[in-house]
């Protein structure tokens, strides 16, 4: 394999056979985001009030808590991919590596915090906190 030109370094390596994978998953999560976020906005708009008791009682229902957890999984997966693409497009060298690493930590930390909070509200609503 050549070592001189850029073409020479990649010639013969072939496709990685996984280029479309991320793109396809981005589309799948876009579809579920569309449904789940519209459901969330409609549900919040229809709530009678926005005090702690009302929202906790709403999230205590399986039909609110479960779609909200699905929303977190779908939306956070989607934005992780989206921000990865943005970073890869505009950042190079070490900054890219650091930002991609920080993005992974950020996504996993916020998703865990969100899902734990939803579960805690769902399981303890009505109990004295």
């Amino acid at each position, binding site marked *: 394999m050549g070592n001189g030109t850029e073409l020479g370094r990649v010639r013969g390596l072939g496709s990685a056979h996984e280029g479309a994978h991320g793109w396809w998953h981005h589309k799948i999560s876009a579809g579920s985001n569309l449904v789940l976020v519209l459901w969330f*906005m409609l549900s919040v*708009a229809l709530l009678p009030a926005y005090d702690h008791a009302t929202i906790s009682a709403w999230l205590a229902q399986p039909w609110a808590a479960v779609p909200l957890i699905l929303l977190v999984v779908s939306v956070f997966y989607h934005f992780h991919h989206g921000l990865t693409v943005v970073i890869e497009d505009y950042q190079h*060298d070490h900054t890219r590596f650091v930002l991609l690493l920080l993005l992974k930590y950020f996504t996993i930390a916020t998703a865990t915090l969100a899902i734990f909070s939803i579960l805690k509200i769902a399981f303890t609503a009505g109990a004295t906190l």
Partner: protein
Amino acid sequence: MANVRNSARPLSPHLSIWKWGPSMAVSIVHRVTGSGMATVGTILFVWWLGALASGPAAYGAFIDLFTLSSGKLNIAGYIVGIGLTLSFFQHMASGVRHLFLDVGANFELGGNKRTALATFVIAIVLTAGFWAFLLEKSNG
């Protein structure tokens, strides 16, 4: 991370020399709204959920940041609320348009330009409708 680009060669100066058009604007706004929601939106969403799970006092402190003592939204509440709603509807409209582009449809110049402009109109109309509903409900 290997940098294989020869830095002596110029990059395309695309943004600085291209004449702005609707398709280009939609693409850029899609990235800006997506990045905005992924950062500001995520932090506020998780903060809201964490405050809810921490109890009425923590939730009250969170709500106080965005409301007046009367319970109505303050300036920060309106800017963040309307900003995120507009970002979502814009990102949603251009995302749906993108799904058509992905299957190879809507690349004719006229239709492509019209749907690009339509995403802005749809986003503004849906945001106005959503907030008209919310404000009507809280006042009525």
